[in-house]
Each structure stands twice: as structure tokens, then as C-alpha cells.
């Protein structure tokens, strides 16, 4: 019974999120542009699926992913983490880093927006960009970003140093990477951090900041999402560069047979 009541209130919440956007778009399309909506039934059904699906997902994330993340961080931490005097070294949190990497990788793979965009990219590129290749590269990027973010919180490195380094790497890769992939690569970070990843990342950040006595959860809790959405560009660009390299080598080998 509780579940139904909770679902009802979450549904109200997501409807408030989805409906204004949908109505605005339909208004512009039908009234301002005077177009007839093709397959109106599909659009209406799709919008209700999005609303209900989002409500179920948010409730489930709240009931499963968020508590699981918090619980794991608490249990995987070294025993003396709470002890400010013992000052555990940042390396003693290795289990947390490993967990952070695995769980954010898995969460990004499950991310519906990444799935939908990867599929669209596959269609647009005529199959040249593999759906799974893009999803795995993006997810690895998110996982790498969050793991580095966890290390940063534990080691107490200022956030803007890390992000400046990330920016510099992206800028250098921009010079050498294939042009066509650049816009997509910059986009992947935002695409892969939506409904599933962000709560997981938040649970990790919050759990970690609470665990460490020297950290202020309010100030050090920030920054994890930023790492999660900037680092994927690096990995996707690297993936494209490596693919290009292999292709070049294969072409050269074909040209001069031994």
C-alpha cells in the first residue's frame, strides 16, 4: 500500500517535470508552426510511457541503488577511516575505488539516454560507429572520472586542479582526433550522466564525504558529477584515435604486402 502511495506522489512529480516541456513543444509545433502531428497516438503513448517510466525508475533508484551505494561505501572503507588521528593513507581506500569504478561503469551501461543516443549515432553513421563500442567507451569514461573524483576527495586535492588537467587533455586530443567525432565525444559526458548514474555518483560522494572526518560533506560533496561528465570525452576521443591508428596501419599493410 505504501508503495502505491509513494508511486502516486512520484508520478505527480515526474508529470510536473515532463508535461510542461511536452505541452510547450506541442504548442509550438501545432499552433505556431501549424503542422499536423503525425502519429499523434504514438507521441501521446510515448509521453505517458516516459512519465510513468521515470517515476518507477526514480522510486527504484531511491529504494535500491542509492542505499546500496551508501551501504557499500560504509562497509568497504578501511576500519580506521573515521579516526582523524590515525589519518589513513589515501591508498588504503582501494576497495572503495574499485567499487566506485565497477558500479559507475555498470550504471552508465544501464543509462537509458546513452542507449538511445548510441543507437541513433549508429543509424546516422551508417553502422560505422558501433553502439556497444560507444556505450563501453562512455561508461569507462564515467567510471574513470568518478574513481578519480573519489581519490580526489580522499586525498584532498582541490577540484579545479583536477578539472583543469582534464580540460588540458581534451584540448590536446582535440588537435589530433578525427574531426567528425569531436562534437559527439564532447557530448557523451552529458549524455551518460542522467537518471541512473547521477544518483549512484551522489551516493558515493555523500558517503565518502561523511566517512572522512576532515571533509565537509557540504563542500566536498560537490565535484563528482563534474568529473563524471568531463572525463568521458577523453576516453571516447582516445577510442576514436586508437581506432584511426589501427585503420591507418591496416591500410598501409594492405598497400605494401610483404
Amino acid at each position, binding site marked *: 500500500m505504501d508503495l502505491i502511495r509513494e508511486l502516486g506522489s512520484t508520478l505527480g512529480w515526474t508529470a510536473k517535470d515532463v508535461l510542461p516541456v511536452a505541452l510547450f513543444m506541442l504548442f509550438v509545433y501545432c499552433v505556431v508552426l501549424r503542422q499536423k502531428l503525425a502519429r499523434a497516438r504514438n507521441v501521446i503513448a510515448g509521453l505517458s510511457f516516459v512519465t510513468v517510466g521515470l517515476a518507477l525508475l526514480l522510486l527504484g533508484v531511491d529504494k535500491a541503488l542509492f542505499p546500496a551505494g551508501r551501504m557499500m561505501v560504509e562497509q568497504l572503507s578501511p576500519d580506521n577511516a573515521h579516526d582523524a588521528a590515525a589519518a589513513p593513507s589515501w591508498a588504503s581506500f582501494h576497495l572503495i575505488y574499485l567499487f566506485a569504478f565497477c558500479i559507475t561503469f555498470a550504471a552508465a551501461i544501464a543509462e537509458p539516454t546513452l542507449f538511445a543516443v548510441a543507437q541513433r549515432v549508429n543509424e546516422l553513421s551508417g553502422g560505422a560507429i558501433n553502439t556497444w563500442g560507444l556505450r563501453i567507451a562512455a561508461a569507462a569514461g564515467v567510471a574513470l572520472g568518478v574513481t578519480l573524483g573519489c581519490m580526489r576527495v580522499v586525498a584532498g586535492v582541490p577540484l579545479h586542479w583536477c578539472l583543469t588537467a582534464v580540460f588540458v587533455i581534451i584540448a590536446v586530443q582535440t588537435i589530433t582526433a578525427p574531426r567528425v567525432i569531436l562534437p559527439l565525444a*564532447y557530448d557523451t559526458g552529458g549524455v551518460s550522466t542522467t537518471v541512473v548514474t547521477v544518483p549512484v555518483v551522489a551516493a558515493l560522494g555523500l558517503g565518502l564525504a561523511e566517512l572522512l572526518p576532515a571533509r565537509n560533506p557540504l563542500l566536498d560533496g560537490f565535484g563528482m558529477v563534474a568529473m563524471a561528465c568531463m572525463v568521458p570525452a577523453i576516453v571516447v576521443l582516445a577510442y576514436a584515435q586508437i581506432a584511426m591508428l589501427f585503420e591507418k596501419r591496416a591500410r598501409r599493410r594492405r598497400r605494401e604486402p610483404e
Partner: protein
Amino acid sequence: MRLFGRMVLGTIRDMAPVVVVVLFFHSIVLGQPVSRLFPLIEGTLLVLAGLVLLVYGLELALFPLGESLANALALRGSFVWLVLFAFLLGFGTTFAEPALTAVAAEAARAAASGGAIEHTPDALARYAFGLRFVVALAVGCALTLGVVRIVFGWPLPPLVIGGYVLVVALTLVAPPAVIGIAFDSGGVTTSVITVPLVTALGIGLASSLAGRNAMSDGFGTIALVLVMPMLFVMAYGTILSWI
């Protein structure tokens, strides 16, 4: 119906890694009894059901709606309407975004604990509202810039890298309390509604304009949505600290 069945199976496959990771760390690394995870089953099933509906709904409604809207706007040839639409879409969806509201409230508490603002409900609410407004403005401008870029065929890398340079320059003068929230504000605004819509808008626009390629011109707007709020929030925090 067959498509729906395939989707359910696909979603189960996509969710499996999460379950495996939690099970592995819980049972093997920590050696805890599996029964302690039973309370999480209900939530996992909800996530699964939600993902199926969401993915199906995105393909059925948000992608086609965004693309046909972009097509219609491009065919009409009204640049003013296009820009106005892009700005309103960005501003509106962001200002109403629940995740941003939550983060803005948290940022207000962080600013108060850092001594940047007074610790009264009134000051907190004003700070949070200002933050939401600035982020929404930033996303509106980012979408506008993204659309203008596609129409005129401007290359994306200078815009994005230029944005990074400005952000890094601003961290030198911005108050420390605002830097964390500024960096996070970009990622928080990309939601499950905005990402498909903005992507579809870019693809639709690029594919209906002559001389534009959907792959190399259609993408990139999300990247601007990530950078622009960082820039605006840092600037906002810096200006506030000067007053």
C-alpha cells in the same frame, strides 16, 4: 509486441552488470549473507520496469517530436523563431528541473556554512533561486548558441575549448564556495528529458539544412550545455562576492 519483448530482454541485460557488481562486492569481497540484499529487490524491479518504459517512450515520442519540430522550424526558415524556441526550451526545462532545485538548495547551505551568505531561510532561498535562474539562463544561451552554430556552420571545438579556458580563468578569481557547485551545475542540468530533446533538435536541424551533416554538425549542443552553466555560475558567484 515482439519489439517490446526484445526491449524487456535488452533492459534486463543492461541492468545485469549493476546487480552483478553489488552481489560481487557484497557476498565475495565482504562475505556478507545474500539475505541482507533482499530489501533491495523491490527497488531493482522498479528500476527495471522504469527503464523499459522510459527507453520505449523516448524512441516513441521524444526523439520523433524533437526531430520533426526541428525539421518544421528549419523548413519555415524563420531564424527568429528558431532562436526563441531554443532559448525558451533551455530556460524552461532547466528552471523546472527538480534535480537542479535540490542541488541549488544544497549549494545555498554550503555557501552559508562557508560564510558567503547569512544563515537565514530568507537568504538561503534567495541564493538558491538566483542560482537556478542563472543556470537556466546559461542553458537557454547554450541551446541558442548551439542552434546558431548549426545554422551558420561554425566549428564546435573553438567554442568548447574557449569555454574551458574561460572557466579555468574564472576559477582564479571566483570564491571557493562557488567553484564546486559551478562545476557540477553543468552535469546536473542534463536530464533524461533534455538530452533526447536537445540531441534530436540538433540532428533534425542539421539533417534538414543543406550542406550540414547530422553526424558532424548535429551533435555538440549538449557539450555547450555542460560548459555554459559552469561559466555563468562562476561569473555570478564572482560578481556577488564583489558587491
